[in-house]
């Protein structure tokens, strides 16, 4: 049986504000099979970005377990921080693609070089980076630098980078948040098309309920109810 791409069990995170302890979320259980998509909604501060950071190892949870493709990370394990860090880094490098709202590109590199860099880090061929830009409709901009193209084009390039690494899991944090409606729709269309095409699991954090609705399930971080498949 194939393990879930992403599985969390009893995941909790809180922060200290003054003398008070504020729960961001607690006892969070998620399980996503390959090709599934989940959207995280909720107001700012409800923990969408924190959850994304935790499931790619950039932040750690207070307690609970995260499993990526069967690799288990438990806060209770006696694993050394360095070894854990190494496992996470390896997953991010090859398995997990992350797209932020903006600034996904190295400003000093051209769009093509950005895609090549990401592909190389993931151990993929760098030769088809041009193809990916082409598929995202910005092939003619390959030699431009990030500050020479529009915000929508930058986000397309960011997606080209993510798909060029052929990941199993894509984490997208407000990927269309800084775009106008029309461009946002175009970018979202491309994202979902490619996701479906490649059979990649997608976790999408967004304010946008319409965009959230395009995922198979929705997790409302503010008024959390456990998501079920197709729920």
């Amino acid at each position, binding site marked *: 049986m194939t393990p879930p791409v992403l599985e969390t069990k009893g995941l909790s995170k809180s922060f200290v504000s003054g003398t008070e302890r504020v729960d961001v979320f607690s006892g969070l259980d998620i399980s996503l099979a390959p090709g599934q998509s989940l959207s995280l909604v909720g107001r700012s501060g409800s923990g969408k970005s924190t959850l994304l950071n935790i499931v790619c190892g950039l*932040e750690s949870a207070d307690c609970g377990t995260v499993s990526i493709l069967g690799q288990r990370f438990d806060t209770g394990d006696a694993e050394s921080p360095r070894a854990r860090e190494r496992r996470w880094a390896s997953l*991010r490098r090859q398995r997990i693609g992350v797209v932020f709202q903006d*600034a996904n590109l190295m*400003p000093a590199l051209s769009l093509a070089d950005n895609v090549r*860099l990401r592909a190389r*880090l993931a151990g993929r061929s760098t030769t088809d980076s041009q193809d990916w830009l082409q598929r995202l409709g910005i092939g003619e901009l390959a030699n431009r*630098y990030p500050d020479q*193209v529009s915000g929508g084009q930058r986000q397309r390039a960011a997606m080209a980078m993510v798909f060029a690494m052929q990941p199993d899991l894509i984490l997208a944090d407000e990927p269309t948040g800084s775009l106008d409606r029309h461009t946002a729709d175009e970018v979202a269309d491309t994202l979902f098309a490619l996701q479906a095409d490649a059979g990649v699991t997608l976790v999408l954090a967004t304010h946008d309920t319409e965009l959230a609705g395009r995922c198979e399930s929705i997790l409302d971080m503010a008024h959390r109810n456990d998501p079920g498949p197709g729920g």
Partner: protein
Amino acid sequence: MNAAAALFSHYRRHPLQLVALALMILISTMLWSGMNHLTDQARSSLGRAEQSLSEGSQVIREDGAPVTVADFARLRRAGLCVMPWLEVPDPDGVGRLIGIDPLAAACFASGAMSGEQPALDGEPFIDMARAARLAGSPGDEAPPLVLLAADSVSADGLPTGYALASFARGPDTGELGASFLLNLDALGVLVLLITALLLRAVYQLSIVQRRDSFALLHRFGVPGKRINGLLMIEVLVLAGVCVLPGVWAGAQLARALGEGFGRSLEGLFDVTLYADGSQWWRSILVMMIVVLIACLPVRTLPHWLKRSRGVGWLGLGLLAIGMVWVAWSPGLVWTFVAVGLVFVGAGVLVPRLMAGIMATLSSRVDDPLGRWRYRELGVMARQLALPVVALQFTLALVLAVQTLVTTFEATFEQWLDQRLAAHWYVQVPEGRSGDRAADWLAQKLEPGTAAWHRIRRGTVMVDSGAGPSHRVDLLAVSPIGPLMEKWTLQSSLAHPWKLLADNQGVLINEQLALRYGVGVGDSLVLTLNGRVQSRTVLGVYADYGRPSGEVLVNGADLPADFQPEFESFSISPGGRGEAWLVSGFERIWQVPEIEIRENSDIRAMATRVFRQTFVLTRAMTFLTLTLAGTALLIMGWVFITSRAWYLQLLVTWGLSRREAFGELVRVSLGLTTTVSLLALPLGVWLTWVLVHRINPQAFGWSLPMAVYPGFWLELLALSTVIGLGIAALMGRQLRPGRMVALPANQSGGGER
């Protein structure tokens, strides 16, 4: 909460930043105003030296003995308007005080009461009685009395036994002084520049960190102008509070460094550093302006420097013109201007050159990460243009000064070896003559295995045939033997030592040769104890670290009644030991105890004195280097803070934090290493200029050109330390659990 309180609450949350900024202003003010205090003093001292040179003359004794109060009385009673002038160290501070007798000075006023009267606060003049007390008892260490002569005193009107000499105890300071001032000014400007960079760096850091607050205030309807106005008030208050104690601390610094500074001034130019009130308000004003300039236009300064292509060509042009100009420059001032051109050219060119090199390298690399590294370095070179250039200049300066001082040291040691060739050194006791001792040594020591000579020092009037006579030092040696023959001569007739031994002429030092335009084969008229003789110049010898001219004569050529100011023996006694020498001399001179010293001790002492002379030069360059390094460090920190997101992007892309830190180290080391590599040619060139162009013109003696690759390695190591420092500061940003927020100003794609 009003806008001001909201804006300044940043410092409530980050009090250390406020303290750092305040300390930075205070320390830079201290450094600059301290140096400025010293240069001011040096400037007025030099001015005084030149003034007295152009207008003053003094009465000296023809027998070469120092003048005393008895001479003063005798001259006054002959109706001559002379006054005493006694320079003594200021016991309470830096520099020297001048003792004068206002009553004797009264006659100076009679002929010259026209013109405006200069403001004078009393310093450095004090009454003779106090000066005499400060001078202590007359002896070797006591400063000499000078009898200043009024214009009405003519050489013809002097009693016999006296002569008129110009009132300048050293060389013509005209060009030397001007060049020294230029040196000081250049160093001062550099320190000011680095100060400004430093302040700018720290202030920019706080601005970067407060950008979100500004945006928030702006969103709440506080106009940008008002925010800028509040920031300006903040800077003014901060500057006002910190500059005053900084100026005070600067005065303390000047006091602490003053002695060494005075010594270099005296050693190199024979110009005395006089105690003088400094214009403290000027320091305050300048520092306030620097703080304002450094802090206010935070976003605008280097833009024009970054992009325009013509500026690069301009830099190249300036560099070329400066280089050619230095090689052909007619005078010292022009040399300095040309050096300035080269520096400006290099400063404009280097950031572009670095960016260009990085662009070329990145295009040749196939590895995308390697390409990223080079591209990132290119961005840094442009973004950090100012501190990069400052660091480069400082490295070049340090390299050149260090090389110069080391060359000087090596040459000086070689020179000492020649001068201290004998094993033992004995000073003839006060009131005794060396005559019998010389006879005894001649009798007892075997010429084959032992060597010795007798040294007598005094002064002699020299007339080169052009212009007036000059009083220079006299060095009489006899017999002329093997201890002398190792001396390096810059130029000479054939067999100069043989000719000297045969009384066929004299040797002169390089200073005398340069100053009075005398060369080998020329003849000099020497007046010694009233005896006038013409002597041929047999050779010119190097004589380092002092400005005075000197004539070397065969001791057998001295008049019988010559009274040396100082007399000694240098002896390598062959098989004989110290005890034999000591008992022999004690018997001859009838003194209970004789001090006989090993020349190696004297050598160690001379080396120590020499090093002290350069303590200040070294301290200044090192200080400047520290400042420049700190400036780059802080600017680098600011820069990388703005790039922290992208470093984190690398981590998101799967580099472990350790790997990402490695990338950071490579980038910052790449920057500082490139800077120091580019500083090397500039430094070597500057060394050449110092040694071959500036030194002979400014100091009166020349040095060989040398290259010390060891220093290059030291500088590279230093720049590595700075690079690692930047990386270490930035590494904090990569600590686990620390997420960098996307900076608000980075959403346009970032600087590339």
